[in-house]
Structures are given as structure tokens and as C-alpha cells.
């Protein structure tokens, strides 16, 4: 059995905790870092620790931010009557990239999943209702994923929102733009047909 010096073993061990990084990649990265100039490793270490000290989740929408509330929540030019409900803050970046959406966001920080012990109280659902009551919100767009849990979460919220005087919508499911029907899997195609609209 081969033994690494303690500090190296610790670095490998920490790197291995990251997603998609296995034992081999962790080793490669660690040895690469050993060879990096010290100025670079210091910068990396600093960046890592600042991410935690300077960044936080927006107290209103859950976005990752260095100011409270975040730049989206404080932007008065945005449509403040529409809230898009997403699972995780990264979904916000995906939607922002489209440059189509001008409303506000609300990240739930997860989805309903009894098997993982996640119920409505573990998500930022109460906060969503507080926002609906205190802000002037007219439409809620449910943009959770089309997985079983994402769908269950959307169905749960739909029911909870029913009694309120707001419009609830669900993002559409279907064929990617430029998708050639012949190459689209049968399941996606069947769902797209099911969700067809009059034009």
C-alpha cells in the first residue's frame, strides 16, 4: 500500500468530495497543484474561501449573490408581477441566458421527495406565499424540471395556489428547437403530442 505524505493525502481527499471527481482525477489534480507556482495556489485558495465568505443566497429569491437582496430582486426595470419558481439557483442562470424572461425568481432549493425526507416544509414554499401576499404578484410560472419529483412539486404548488387570485402556468415540455422529429426519442415525442396547442 502506497502512502502519500499527510498534506497531499488531505488535498486528494478533499478534491474527491467534488461531484464527477473520482480517485484518479483527484490524484491528477493534486499533483498538478503541487507543480503550480505558489502565487497561483494562493489565488485558488483565496477564491475558494471568498466564495464562502462573500457569497450567500438572496434572502428573497434564493439566487446566489454578494448583496442582499440580489441584483435581480432590486432591479426596478424588471416585471415585478411575475415570479418564476425554480428548483435550484443554477436554473436561474439557465433562464437568464435566454434573455426572454424579465420577471422575478423564486428558488425552492430542492423538490418534494419523501424518499429523501424532503417535504413542503423543507422547501422555500412558505417564503413564496409570503411574497405573494406582500408583493404585487399576478402570475406564478412553475419551472421545476419534468422529472417525477419536479412534476409532483409543480402539482403540489398548483393546488396550493388555486385559491389565490393569480395565474399559475407551467413551462412547456417538448421537442428541442431544430430537433428533427425522426431523431427524437418516442417518449419525448409522445409527451410533446400530448401537450400540443392550437395555433
Amino acid at each position, binding site marked *: 500500500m502506497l502512502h502519500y505524505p499527510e498534506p497531499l493525502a488531505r488535498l486528494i481527499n478533499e478534491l474527491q468530495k467534488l461531484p464527477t471527481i473520482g480517485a484518479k482525477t483527484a490524484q491528477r489534480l493534486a499533483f498538478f497543484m503541487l507543480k503550480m507556482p505558489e502565487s497561483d495556489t494562493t489565488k485558488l485558495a483565496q477564491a475558494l474561501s471568498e466564495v464562502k465568505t462573500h457569497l450567500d443566497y438572496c434572502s428573497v429569491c434564493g439566487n446566489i449573490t454578494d448583496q442582499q437582496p440580489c441584483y435581480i430582486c432590486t432591479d426596478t426595470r424588471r416585471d415585478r408581477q411575475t415570479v418564476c419558481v425554480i428548483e435550484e439557483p443554477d436554473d436561474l442562470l439557465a433562464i437568464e441566458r435566454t434573455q426572454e424572461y424579465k420577471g422575478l425568481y423564486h428558488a425552492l432549493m430542492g423538490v*418534494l421527495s*419523501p424518499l429523501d425526507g424532503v*417535504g*413542503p416544509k423543507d422547501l422555500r414554499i412558505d417564503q413564496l406565499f409570503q411574497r405573494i401576499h406582500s408583493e404585487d404578484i399576478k402570475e406564478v410560472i412553475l419551472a421545476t424540471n419534468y422529472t*417525477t419529483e419536479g412534476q409532483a*412539486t409543480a*402539482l403540489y404548488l398548483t*393546488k396550493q395556489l388555486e385559491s389565490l387570485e393569480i395565474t399559475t402556468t407551467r413551462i412547456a415540455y417538448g421537442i428541442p428547437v431544430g430537433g428533427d422529429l425522426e431523431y427524437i*426519442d*418516442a417518449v419525448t415525442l409522445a409527451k410533446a403530442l400530448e401537450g400540443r396547442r392550437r395555433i
Partner: protein
Amino acid sequence: MRLNQLVLRNFRSYTDCEIDFTDRVNLIVGENAQGKTTLLEAIYFLSTAKSHRTYPDNELIRYNESWFYLRGKIAAANGSDTNPEAQIEPLDLMTVEVSNELSGKKRFKFNGVLQKKLSEWIGQFNVVFFSPESLTLVKGAPADRRRFIDLLISQIDSVYLSSLQNYQFALKQRNELLKQIRSKQANPDFLDPWDDILIAEGISISQTRVRMFAQLKAYVQAKHTELTGDREVLELKYQPSPEKIDRAPKQEATELFRQGLQSSRSYDILRGMTAVGPHRDDFKLILESQSAGAMYFQEAKAFGSQGQQRTIALALKLGELELIRETTGKTPIVLLDDVFSELDGERSSFLFNLLGRLNAQTFITSTRQEAWGPELGDCRVFTVHDGQVN
């Protein structure tokens, strides 16, 4: 469909083995525990991503190894092969590969391309497996019959498999939630979204099953009559859950299902399990016979003789073969494990004549070389000894 070549690496008793097969009958001969069934199991795994006999898949990994790998080279008529004229058309060649690591990582490649969805994998090449254990279709539990129906439909309808996977996942979530409600950790209202998903997927599963079952029934009855003469009639009755859902149009079926879930909710919470839904479906096999002018109805499971039950199991499997053949236009590969010990001379010659007529590629295992008779037709013999094939 034809399996031209099979490669097995670290698969049960096989270390590294490459076998070229013939288009018609491949007779696999060897003593007990030499690896005959394992060859059929490998072919079955390439087709269905499952073993016919074990779970989890890690049991298939050779002792002291950390992975197994399977590869099949398959030829399929470009178009239909059930139409004799299509036989001359060029063949599509496909390579299918499966690997499984001890860590649980499974990879499926079709013509070298990694496949992401199981529903896209299953159905690329189809097999029908018949062995002494097929008797569980008649004698076994409802779960055995559901597995048969589910695999059959999954081979011809990829939307079905995806609905089934969603349904089973939502069911697990719901059952977990029921237990949390029972111990006062969750609110009964939280069940609503899971019920909605179960209903949406369940209705589509149920309707597909009922439609396919009607077709299957016709084929099975025809085969059963060919096997037994007109002495007795086999009746197959689908029993959906909730009841009567099979005869209702979609809207009404949805309502029936919703009511079923609602009315069993408190019972479900008590038991921590969902009592209603297609995961409780079954079908009954009933033998109708006439004697002294009176009709007799007997459930095959309880009252059939061993011989009657075997005949029904064979009829079900041949019905499966016909249904896949008619729906996909391609003759599935037929895997027969130890059937000589199971079927008498009359029934086995019926079977081999039929497979000869269908021109189905067939794999037969036997402990006896003499099993090979003229009724098998054009045949290649492989002897298996201790994980080696000659």
C-alpha cells in the same frame, strides 16, 4: 433477427469467450453447472438489460472480478422479416454492448454510441425465453404475470416502459410518504401530487395493457388449441386494479382510479402501502371443458394438472412470440432452456415445427446430445464445459 456473434467477459463462469452462431438452431450441450443457461442469460441480458433469474446484476460478475462485459453482433432484415419477400433485402448490422461494474455503473452502447434511456434500449432486438420456470406464469404470484406483460409490452412500446418507470418511482415515493403520515411526520394532503402522477401514468399503463392483452389473448388461445386439440378451451381474463377500469373510457377511468385511491387512503396510511392501481393487476387462466353435456370452469393455477399447466405456459410464450412478431415485423430470437426435460415428444415436435416454419433463430440447452433430432432442422452443436465452449 439473428445473433451472429456473442462475446462474454467475466460473465459468471466465463472469463473471455467469443462464439459464432448459426442462423437457425444452436444446440448447447453440456453436463449440469457447466454454463449452458449462462449463455442464454447473456443473450437475454443484452436484449432486456436484466437477467431472467437473478437480481442484483452484480451476481453476474465473475467471482473476484469487478466488472462484466457482453457484446452481441446482430443482423436484422431491413424492414420486415416476417414477410418472405423481405428476406432478400439487405440486412442491418447492429452491435450491442453492455458493461456492468461492481460499483453499480451500467453502460449500454448501440453501434458504439452510449444510450441514456433504458426505454430506448429495450426493444432493439427482442427475445422470447422459455424454461421450466416459465411455469410460474401459471402457478406463480400475480407479480410473475405482471412482469411477463410488462416486459412483453416494453419490447414493442418504449413510451410504455417510460410510463411504467415513472409510475413505479412515484409509487415508491407515495409509499414512503404514507409511512411518514402514519408516524405523524407528514400531512395527508401531501399525497395529492403523487396521486395525480399515479393516476396520469397509471391510466396510460392500464389502457395499454388492456389493449395488448386482448391481442395476446387471441394468439395464446390459438396456440393452446393447436397444442391440445378442441378438448378444452383456455379463457384468459384480465383483472385490472381498480376493477372495471378496463371497460371505462379515459375520463371515467381517471375518475374510477381517483375514487379508488381516495377510498383506500386511510387504509393505505395504516399499512404504509398503496392498495389500488396497476401495480396490483393480474390475469386469470381458466380452463373450460365439456363433460356429459355440462360445462366446467377451472382455474388452471389451482386445478390444472402439471401437463395442462405446462401447455398453458408454452401457449403464453408462443403467444408472446407471435405478438412481438406481428407488431414489430421481426421474428424474435427464441431461447429454450432445458425444455426437453419439460415437454413430451408431441409438444416438443409441435414447438420445433413451429419455430422452423417461422424461421426463428433458436438457442436450445440440453444435457443430452441425443436431444438433437431431425425435427430440429439445420442445427449447430456447441459443447459447454466449465465456462468453455467448443
